[in-house]
């Protein structure tokens, strides 16, 4: 494939301009300003302009810096995993579930660990949904069990096992020192130990989750900010079909809804 070399663009194409801000633990002064310029230079920037050096308290200074980087990237060489599947409208999805599976899809979800940020998982699972898009509870084709906040990974796995769930929906919002990854890994380990890993679909979601990270953690898919319940509903259906060896082709539906892509939402 051809190379597509790109660089940051400020004023003119490929000028490499980037803006920085940071704090240094020294009082504001001409010397501090010079230190800030050196920080930028050590990052490989040229044309460094320390736009401001402000006293952020007596012992700290705050800087805004502009500079240019000379690196370039081959945009064509970047690979990001995405799943593309058909996206059905609400009624149509319920119809195809009925037709293809002849039963309800069972999903169990929770916000795990000490995390009590429920709005994300609620947005996906509860009746009301998100941004005008109905939640899974509202789909006749789904049975949606939302265990809420602060659920231990083991409790979530146990419930999924008891309900014979098709999919487990895991939400993590607190990410400080990567606690979300830790909890997510723990969950997958327990699922394996409990023997439901193979037969269940695992979805991971949250504001700092992306599809790639989710895959790395052992999940089937990852869903980030702005995810709509209908994306999730369609994905689960698609994945069940795929696992049973009959993936629906990725093409626009009769209802004219466009294809949905996991890992493609911005």
């Amino acid at each position: 494939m051809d190379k597509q070399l790109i660089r940051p663009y400020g004023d003119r194409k490929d000028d490499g301009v980037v803006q920085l801000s940071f704090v240094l633990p020294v009082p504001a002064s001409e010397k501090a300003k010079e230190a800030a310029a050196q920080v930028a230079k050590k990052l490989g920037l040229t044309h460094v302009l320390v736009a401001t050096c402000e006293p952020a308290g007596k012992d700290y200074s705050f800087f805004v810096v502009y500079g240019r980087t000379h690196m370039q990237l081959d945009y064509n060489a970047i690979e990001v995993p995405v799943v593309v599947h058909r996206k059905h409208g609400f009624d149509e999805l319920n119809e195809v579930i009925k037709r293809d599976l002849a039963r309800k899809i069972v999903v169990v979800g929770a916000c795990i660990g000490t995390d009590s940020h429920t709005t994300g998982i609620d947005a996906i699972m509860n009746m009301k949904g998100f941004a005008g898009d109905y939640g899974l509870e509202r789909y006749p084709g789904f049975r949606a069990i939302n265990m809420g906040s602060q659920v231990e990974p083991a409790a979530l796995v146990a419930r999924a096992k008891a309900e014979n769930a098709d999919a487990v929906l895991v939400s993590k919002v607190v990410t400080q020192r990567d606690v979300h990854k830790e909890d997510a890994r723990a969950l997958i380990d327990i699922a394996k130990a409990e023997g439901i890993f193979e037969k269940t679909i695992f979805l991971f979601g949250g504001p700092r989750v992306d599809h790639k990270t989710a895959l790395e953690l052992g999940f089937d898919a990852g869903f980030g900010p702005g995810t709509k319940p209908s994306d999730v509903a369609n994905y689960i259906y698609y994945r069940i079909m795929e696992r049973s060896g009959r993936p629906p082709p990725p093409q626009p539906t009769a209802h004219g809804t466009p294809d949905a892509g996991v890992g493609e939402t911005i």
Partner: protein
Amino acid sequence: MAQLFVDSSKIARARELARSAALGVQAFIDRHTTVSIERTVLRLLGISGAGTRGAPLANLMVDKLREAGVLDKGAAYWLGRALKSAPGKDPLHAIERVAAHPDKLPALPPEEETQLREEMRADARAAVKELRERIDRRTQLKASLKVGSFEKAPWKYVIVATGNIYDDVEQAKAAAQLGADVIAVIRSTAQSLLDYVPHGATTEGFGGTYATQENFRIMREALDEESRKLGRYVHLTNYSSGLCMPEIAFMAAYERLDMLLNDAMYGILFRDINMKRTFCDQYFSRRICGFAGIIINTGEDNYITTADADEAAHTVIASQLVNESFAHQAGMKDELIGFGHSFEIDPAREDTLLREFAMAMMVRELFPRSPIKYMPPTKHKEGDIFFSHAYDVMADLVAITTGQGIQLLGMMTEAMHNPFLMDRYVALKSASYLYRAARHLGEEISFRPDGIVARRQRDVFDQALRLLEEVAKDGMMAAIGKARFGDTARTPEGGKGLDGVVEKAPDYFNPFLEILENG
């Protein structure tokens, strides 16, 4: 300044309903105590240490008493008895002995019983006197300094949350130097679910720093020093929430904190703490806050980070009225009740600034004597820090224009991480700009009585009134069961900490409650 477009008769009616709802719960509160209340009693009596593996002595003792099934007489009673029966022994061992075979413990003869209680009452009075003296020192320091970085403007409130109390101190000092009036040390994510208060200085927390008495002391000392240097008093606040509401209230009082997050329902709704537990705990914690002159901040902002801020606006008002009644029942003066609300309206919509003005003015005027704590946007913050900053600036504008009391400054990086030093810098600098630029705007403008703002206020209040009618009819517990607040349903028997609720015996003894309720 702020304008209220709501009928005063409707307001009176709503207050009446909220009072009756809270009174329903108060009857329950009066009949019960909790492990946390009893631990607080012990702490008040000087039991402040920790056992070998860091477990606080107060916990070890109360656990023993509860296991022995005698907590219903009150921990103060047992401590008195234990020390009497084993003079010279250390209190933990003494309690252990008493609790080992409680059934074998003979009732004391009436006059000894009376004497024991009188002695404990004397100890309690001494403890309260010491506490009063500590608090007076804060009052004196405050009186000798300027209070509030801007006259006639909200106090600027910022959060530090590094997880490490020593980094927190660094960041708090820098913030104070830049004009912060209040420093809030945010707690570690899981702390509210701990049924004890960790001991000592701590350097590792998730999304916050553990609330411990030693951490309180360290931070207050640093701020005292900084206040003196700046000639301006810098307030300190923390959380009296979760499973240890009253204990933290005591520690805060003792270490001279100025404010506390403290809400009658927050723990129930947002931490799934049992409602009976929380109702009892909030009561005793508020008795302490009232005594110590600690401003509490209620947590109605959380309703609209969970539910939609437009749709759930009325739950904020209804809950504030309920919180007010609970606080009044705990003897708190209006001047100490800092009602919380927030600028959480979705910026993608139309007329959001108008609808925010409606809410901010209504809350301000419904509680004219109370300091209102106004929170910034958080839920609709974006990774685009420039946009988020603009959005925060609008909150600054509303805060200064409508005369809010305490303004939590929004952070442009809210959607990513706990505030960094530079985030606070940016927030403090623009808030100061807004305060300078618009300090007198509120006195200059008036809103049309038939406009979008006035209509919005009336609509929201009408909905709040309807909700309160329902709550007063069904009772608080049932209303919470129906997810009427914060979009979250809880049952009276669900949630954490129910096993720490104990029905009081007829001869339940709590010398502090006596003092606080009567003084």
